């Protein structure tokens, strides 16, 4: 058997040879070539070694216990979808009148759950994603008119609001705006650090459950959200571009000021 010429064996053949993807006939041709070309043989050997080290290096991950939060994702995703559909049904039915009452009466716990846990971080994250990239119009009223901003938003929400000072964690107030919420107006404050990253504080005064909650975390798409409910007032601190840990500092600073012990 004559030795194959260089031009006969392509780069793709070498790769496929290393991965055992060549048909038998071609395989032996490449093998014959490698037998007399140590440099190429060494290269293929290096490819195999890389693959082996990768497999052995990450082998352990396969045997790690799967975190409960991942297991739960599959189950919870199912129930959440059901809850969401139920939620929309309730909204539709409520708008529809009598039928709504019956349906509503049947499903109060779903409303409570999605309200307390799901609605706030989701809406805050959407508001954050909508306004934080704004270059020219990030806010309606700037921090230069902070007193006016706070009194205006307080009046519209019907509760005394405060814009927390976040300089201690590197953020200063850019300003704020009024947003439409689920059942009424929402106040949205924006903060920025010297590097230009933004954090927003979302405040609503219409949390239906009227039940205070602990400090909680949620991830909505690419946005991290820390939130809590103080009787009817829901607060959410969101960011899409600083670490979850750093955002926790920021949210904590806001929490301490808004809910002094």
């Amino acid at each position, binding site marked *: 058997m004559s030795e194959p010429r260089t031009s006969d064996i392509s*780069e*793709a053949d*070498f*790769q*496929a040879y*290393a*991965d055992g*993807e060549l048909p038998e006939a071609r395989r032996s041709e490449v093998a014959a070539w490698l037998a007399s070309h140590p440099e190429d043989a060494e*290269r293929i050997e*290096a*490819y195999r070694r*890389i*693959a082996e*080290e*990768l*497999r052995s*290096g*990450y082998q*352990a*991950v*396969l*045997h*790690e216990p*799967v*975190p409960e*939060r*991942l*297991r739960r*994702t*599959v*189950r919870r*995703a*199912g129930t959440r*979808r059901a809850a969401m559909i139920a939620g929309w049904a309730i909204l539709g039915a409520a708008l529809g009148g009598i039928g709504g009452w019956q349906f509503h009466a049947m499903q109060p716990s779903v409303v409570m759950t999605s309200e307390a846990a799901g609605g706030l971080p989701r809406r805050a994250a959407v508001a954050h994603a909508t306004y934080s990239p704004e270059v020219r119009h990030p806010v309606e009223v700037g921090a230069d008119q902070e007193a006016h901003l706070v009194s205006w938003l307080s009046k519209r929400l019907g509760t005394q609001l405060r814009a927390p000072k976040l300089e201690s964690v590197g953020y200063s107030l850019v300003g704020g705006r009024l947003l439409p919420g689920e059942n009424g107006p929402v106040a949205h404050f924006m903060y920025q650090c010297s*590097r*230009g*990253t933004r954090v927003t504080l979302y405040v609503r005064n219409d949390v239906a459950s009227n039940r205070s909650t602990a400090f909680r975390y949620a*991830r909505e*798409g*690419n946005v991290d959200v820390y939130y809590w409910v103080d009787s009817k007032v829901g607060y959410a601190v969101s960011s*899409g*571009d*600083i*670490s979850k*840990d*750093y955002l926790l500092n920021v949210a904590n600073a806001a929490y301490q000021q808004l809910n002094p012990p």
Partner: protein
Amino acid sequence: MNEAQRLVDLIPRLRRYARALVGDRATADDLVQDTLERAWAKLHLYRRGTDLRAWLFTVMHNVHVNRVRASRPTDTLEDEMPELAQRAAQGDGLLVRDLDRGIALLPAEQRAVLLLVTLEEMSYEQVARSLGIPIGTVMSRLSRAREKLRALMQGQPVTAKLKVVK
């Protein structure tokens, strides 16, 4: 076996791939979580009887691309603020450091191909389907990824700048 159970069974493989793809455990598990949520929401698009694993890797690929894209504006922030979805040059002490670092230095699209072929042991055709690229592209990316890693592991200089993650 129902789809939910099959998804759960595939979690360890998704975690392994994600770990190699993005580096640290928490970011990798976040990627897996986003993938599972999206997969569950899009399960009606999965054709029963076809390869669920390949489909899941497609979903993960899309989720990953979106996450990287969304985090890109923060790239200029560098040191002070830690970043999301950035491949950190570390591997939980699992791997020979050079190889791990080398993988971190590969362009994302080459890294994905290399990992699917070596770690997941997918055929070129499965990789092509999972990533939505032609087989020829799979092979050229694979070849470039391997050559880069080989050069790196032989101690040749690597031109790409290594981002220092604190």
